[in-house]
């Protein structure tokens, strides 16, 4: 069966060019970057090239780039790191209610460590209001963390404005840009960003490698301790092939962004319009235009999300209910809850997330299949659910 992959917010297929760049570092240039000999220098040079590429893509300098094991570690290093390092200045952190768990659960942890955390609301369209941030700022605020784009509903936040407000209040500003790299332009200086988290596998790079960009002068406490790699901020033998892959993937991603985004927007819009127009009891979650080029997030009446995703899978479409975490279907998405979606209305969620590898044909195939699948599931539903679920 031909398979269509519409779950690129969960993870992406690696670009062949990225793989090719990585391969020699597995069994030929396999040195440890800290070693003095020629194998070590090859590894070191490869990491530094990746660092340059990453810095360039984010508008940073090479010394500001810290390689990590992924978005989660980057978020933890940013939040735990900045909070513990700036404890003398204050103990107040501001974030939003619909962050990824890597930020949210880290903030919960900080709450247990004597920090006060404010969770900003989001509106029904999935947008943070800068006025809310203004109101939440206190003299004690040391860190504001707002994601660049949401991983479930794809909405894009006014990062530059939020960053400016944080800075005016004397706070550091972190953004989790895991979903927006190679989809939205970013320049940490003009976007008022002190800390930015990225994860390679979300933009056709390898899994298990990410980066945290740390603006000059920002102090962090490490999360793990050891040999002192990455200027002491992230000890461990560097994942050379992974870092090489990240560097290549971000370079490709940013240089081809314009074309890729245009392609994805066209497919996304066809998916959104086609689905909404052909199916009853189907709604779009999140702002219609202030959303990522690759995200279409629906809510279906009278359909349970997991059953829908598995039914689509049986027809060859890889999709998701929203995020790739929970095993309990009964666990309501904290993102939809933050948007004010009623629990009963968040049961039938479907996220389609695209990449540059998707085609319009795949979108048409999807539109040809979704109707029947939804109809079948609805036909099985008991009457009360059938009439009262909306």
């Amino acid at each position, binding site marked *: 069966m031909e398979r269509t992959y519409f779950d690129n917010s969960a993870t992406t297929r690696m670009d062949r060019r990225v793989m090719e760049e990585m391969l020699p570092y597995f069994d030929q240039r396999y040195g440890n970057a800290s070693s003095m000999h020629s194998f070590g220098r090859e590894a070191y040079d490869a990491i530094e090239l990746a660092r340059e590429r990453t810095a360039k893509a984010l508008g940073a300098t090479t010394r500001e780039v810290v390689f990590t094991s992924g978005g989660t570690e980057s978020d933890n290093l940013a939040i735990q790191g900045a909070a513990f390092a700036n404890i003398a200045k204050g103990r107040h952190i501001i974030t939003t209610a619909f962050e990824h768990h890597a930020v949210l659960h880290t903030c919960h942890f900080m709450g247990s460590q004597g920090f006060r955390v404010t969770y900003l609301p989001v509106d029904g369209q999935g947008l943070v209001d800068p006025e809310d941030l203004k109101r939440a700022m206190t003299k004690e605020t040391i860190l504001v963390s707002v994601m660049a784009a949401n991983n479930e509903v794809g909405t894009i936040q006014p990062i530059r404005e939020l960053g400016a407000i944080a800075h005016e209040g004397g706070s550091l500003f972190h953004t989790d840009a895991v979903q927006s790299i190679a989809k939205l332009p970013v320049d940490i200086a003009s976007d008022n960003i002190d800390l930015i988290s990225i994860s390679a596998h979300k933009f056709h790079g390898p899994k298990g490698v990410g980066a945290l960009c740390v603006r000059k002068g920002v102090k962090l406490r490490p999360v793990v301790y050891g040999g002192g790699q990455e200027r002491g901020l992230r000890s461990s033998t560097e994942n050379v092939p992974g870092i090489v892959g990240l560097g290549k993937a971000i370079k490709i991603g940013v240089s081809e962004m314009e074309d890729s985004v245009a392609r994805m927007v066209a497919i996304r819009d066809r998916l959104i319009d086609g689905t909404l127009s052909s199916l009853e009891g189907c709604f779009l979650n999140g702002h219609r235009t202030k959303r990522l080029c690759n995200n279409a997030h629906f809510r279906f009446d*009278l359909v349970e*999300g997991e*059953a829908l995703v*598995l039914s689509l899978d049986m027809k060859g479409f890889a999709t998701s209910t929203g995020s790739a975490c929970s095993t309990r279907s*009964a666990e309501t998405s904290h993102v939809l809850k933050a948007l004010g979606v009623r*629990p*009963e209305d968040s*049961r039938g969620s479907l996220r389609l997330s695209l990449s540059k590898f998707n085609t319009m044909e795949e979108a048409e195939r999807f539109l040809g299949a979704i109707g029947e699948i939804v109809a079948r599931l609805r036909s099985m539903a008991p009457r009360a659910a059938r009439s009262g679920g909306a």
Partner: protein
Amino acid sequence: MAYGRKVMEHFANPRNVGEMKDADGVGRFGNTVDGDEVVLYIKVKDDVISDISFQVFGCAAAIASTSMFTEMVKGKSLEAAIRLTKEDVSEALDGLPPGKIGCSVIAPDALRAAINDYLGRRGRGFITGDEIPPMRR
């Protein structure tokens, strides 16, 4: 996380789906707000379940386990049918993810409701959870 083959087979081709107009008993259990919901329809002859059908709103585990459950109880006496547990259903499906058994295998609960409906219609006493002996096959 992943469902086994048997679960997916029942999910793809659920047995005994649909409303039953002339049921002797109907039982509903669960809710659609934050859980799954099952409606069971039974026909009863000499205290034996002679036919059964279901409707469901829920995840694949809810659909598959209800389908499997209807197969398991069809032809069983009410007394035997009422003794089948969530774990029995899960075992018959070669296992379900741990978190799913509690919240999605609700067909046994719906059956109790359906039997009570059947008994009630006939003026016979209801059964409660406590009356079911803690015996497994």
